[in-house]
């Protein structure tokens, strides 16, 4: 199916099933769920983190902490045009915990590098894991995700669009 924004690779239903699967993987990989927290990267990673929290609660009956991380001040390209800055919200200590970073698309890895740097200014997590809805390849740093919703082999000139009901009124992932 093709839309104005390209080929649909995940529709709403598939996106929901994907998140359920990722939630189960997080539960399986972390025996001590109480020590786990989810930290979404603005903008869409935050919405995804909240959904994963819900799915984890459904799957394992544990309500885990969710935070929101803005990485604007940690980017390696400050002199290029910056998106809107949000306020980081981490209302809990991350020291000694397993932080699962959540983002929509994993691409060059630079955002994740910035997010890891930012986290360390908030505390010293025991470990950091990474969950992404889509991995489109083309890494520029030695970074990989622990949980991948969907692998999307893409050409460099293609773009991946993630839309979520919370931010865009529809759930879908498209490539154009």
């Amino acid at each position, binding site marked *: 199916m093709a839309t104005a924004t390209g080929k649909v690779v995940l529709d709403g239903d598939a996106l929901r099933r994907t998140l359920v699967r990722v939630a189960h993987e997080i539960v399986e990989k972390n025996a001590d769920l109480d020590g786990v927290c989810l930290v979404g990267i603005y903008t869409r990673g935050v919405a995804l983190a909240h959904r994963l929290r819900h799915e984890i609660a459904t799957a394992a009956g544990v309500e885990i902490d969710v935070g929101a991380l803005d990485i604007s*001040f*940690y980017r390696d390209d*400050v002199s290029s045009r*910056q998106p809107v*800055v949000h*306020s980081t919200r981490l209302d809990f200590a991350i020291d000694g915990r397993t932080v699962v970073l959540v983002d929509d698309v994993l691409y060059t890895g630079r955002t994740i590098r910035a997010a890891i740097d930012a986290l360390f200014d908030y505390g010293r997590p025991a470990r950091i894991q990474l969950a992404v809805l889509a991995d489109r390849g083309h890494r520029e740093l030695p970074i990989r995700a622990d949980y991948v919703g969907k692998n999307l082999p893409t050409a460099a000139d293609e773009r991946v669009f993630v839309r979520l009901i919370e931010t865009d009124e529809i759930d879908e992932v498209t490539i154009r």
Partner: protein
Amino acid sequence: MTDRDGRRHLLGMADVDAADVERILDTAKSFEAVLDREVKKVPTLRGRTVMTLFFESSTRTSSSFELAAKRLSADTMSLKASGSSVDKGESLKDTVQTISAYGPDVVVIRHAGIGAPGLVTRWTDAHVINAGDGKHQHPTQCLLDLYTMREALGRLDGVQVAIVGDVLHSRVARSNIQGFRMMGAEVLLVGPKTLIPRGIEATGVRVSHDIRDIADADVVYVLRMQRERMAEGAAYVPTLQEYTARWGVTRARLRPTQLVMHPGPMNRGVEIATDVADAAQSLILRQVEAGLVTRMAVLYDLVTRPYREPAAAPVVAAVA
């Protein structure tokens, strides 16, 4: 102001529009979260250099600019020159060209000469921020005042602000009138005729010479009596005592819900009563706190958006 090449500066409130102000205030808000942490520093401007040149005395502005730059991981260098020993002409140029040789990314300047920051833009490749030029402009003061007001009231549009006192000598008043109006606030100037510039109504403000007219304001913004100028024998007001009696902001002249602001340094007991300055309705210390995050946001904004976007091509209306 921008250069011919589009390099951005902040010389006055005319250099920003409402969207710029909103963005800067939002960025400042997110720096609040940074300052709440144990690690109160972000690496954003690592490897950049911010130079501050203060040719006029200053405590809060120079210290907050320096700390703002440090919180962003920039290297800072501060130069203070006493006003009397530095001429406005060649020596300012020499000073700026000398420090420019170090390749600063941002130059912050305070100078008694109106327009001095504009001259500085010609002698350096850095972004220039005006930290006060004579009685002309003080844009970061205006931005931090807007930030403080927005935090306290939740909005700027439609807010009633009474600016009380020595408008004539005040660069803060000039920037604030412009900035407050830009963001949709209503401004009333209150003070003696001798201290309110004639014809200032043209900027969209109202004027009153009766202190009782501050009653309707959400915010009473008290200006510093520039005592140093009074001492020269210019008869702006007969005596400071008389000024205080007629226009001093005292508890009796305020409603408990009105907010009070002052750019500092205060002359307690002259333009503002001590109990008002220290009252719960006073935002004066919050203004100082806002100075840090707002100046961080201004530095961030100039470096991350170094050039003004070219203006959109004028839309030619189609004739049907």
